[in-house]
């Protein structure tokens, strides 16, 4: 596996404050090609009904010189996971499944509320704040990475 991910979580960043030398930027391995940060999923209960959904968000930074295509996501906690694009157009909220999401070379793409996200459908278990869930991201070149997502409370 040529891709090396660096997972940067807020809590780790805060924990490192004591040793901070003036920069919050992660120190990257020279081989790092993609970087996932701020990976989280919205807490939800009621999974026993078999029809509860949630969404997962993250930022994907592409450190390579070529565009990267995210083509699939699989979450262990959900019966089905889809990549969605959401947007508000003329005052109407719209959401559609996306075949793939491109991250241009040298750029970051944020998956965030009201925008692109991973829809976690028919959850197999409740997602409680503070827990973690694994989501496997698959890219167009066939490579996959398992990313830990922090579950955050509904209330902001």
């Amino acid at each position, binding site marked *: 596996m040529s891709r090396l991910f660096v997972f940067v979580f807020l809590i780790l960043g805060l924990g490192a404050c004591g040793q901070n030398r003036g920069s919050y930027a992660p120190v990257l391995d020279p081989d790092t090609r993609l970087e996932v940060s701020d990976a989280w999923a*919205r807490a939800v209960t*009621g999974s026993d*009904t078999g*029809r509860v959904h949630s969404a997962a968000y993250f930022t994907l930074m592409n450190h390579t010189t070529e565009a990267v295509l995210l083509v699939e996501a699989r979450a262990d906690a959900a019966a089905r996971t889809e990549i969605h694009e959401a947007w508000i157009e003329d005052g109407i909220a719209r*959401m*559609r499944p996306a075949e793939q999401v491109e991250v241009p070379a040298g750029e970051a793409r944020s998956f965030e509320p009201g925008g692109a996200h991973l829809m976690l459908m028919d959850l197999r278990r409740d997602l409680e704040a503070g827990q973690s869930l694994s989501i496997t991201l698959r890219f167009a070149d066939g490579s996959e990475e398992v990313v830990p997502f922090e579950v955050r409370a*509904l209330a902001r």
Partner: protein
Amino acid sequence: MIFNAMSFRGSTVLAISLIAAAGCTTYEPHGTLIEPPMQVPDFTLESGTGDVSRSDFEAKLVAMFFGFTHCPDICPDTMARLAHALRQLDADEAAQIQVLLVSVDPERDTPAAVSTYAERFHPAFIGLSGPSEAIADVASGYGIYHARVPLSDEGDYTVDHTPAVVVLNRQGETVLIWRHGIAPEDMAADLRFLLRRS
């Protein structure tokens, strides 16, 4: 001359104080204030425990959001913001607010399902559903667009919808509209403003 000069200074200070005091009472809502408030006919829909009408809450301000339980992103985001806003109010203030979630997906959202969904965000929230025609009437009355959009041949679909929150005054008139994404702190401030003026 000394007396006159002091009077002048005193008048100036008084004038500045009055202007400052007037400034303190001016509040610019974060949502869009509807003036005069817009009258909308009463409605009756179904919660998990029975019929609910808008007129059931005439002693309260009502914040209405039109969403659906299969919506994983904008709807829970908005409901969470409303819950967070309500929790910023004191008990007396919060008791004068009723949040209603009206499903724009009555095909999948039974009254019980949408009620349970709403209560997950805040125990005082009420979820409503009902016949498609009744939902359509209520939504159009508040200027809320919604449309079923097929996603696959297997019957999957989503619902495009207006993600705004409509706030009604104690007379049941539309008095404020929040666009999607407004901060809970700003919602709470607007609700306090509306409680003060009602």
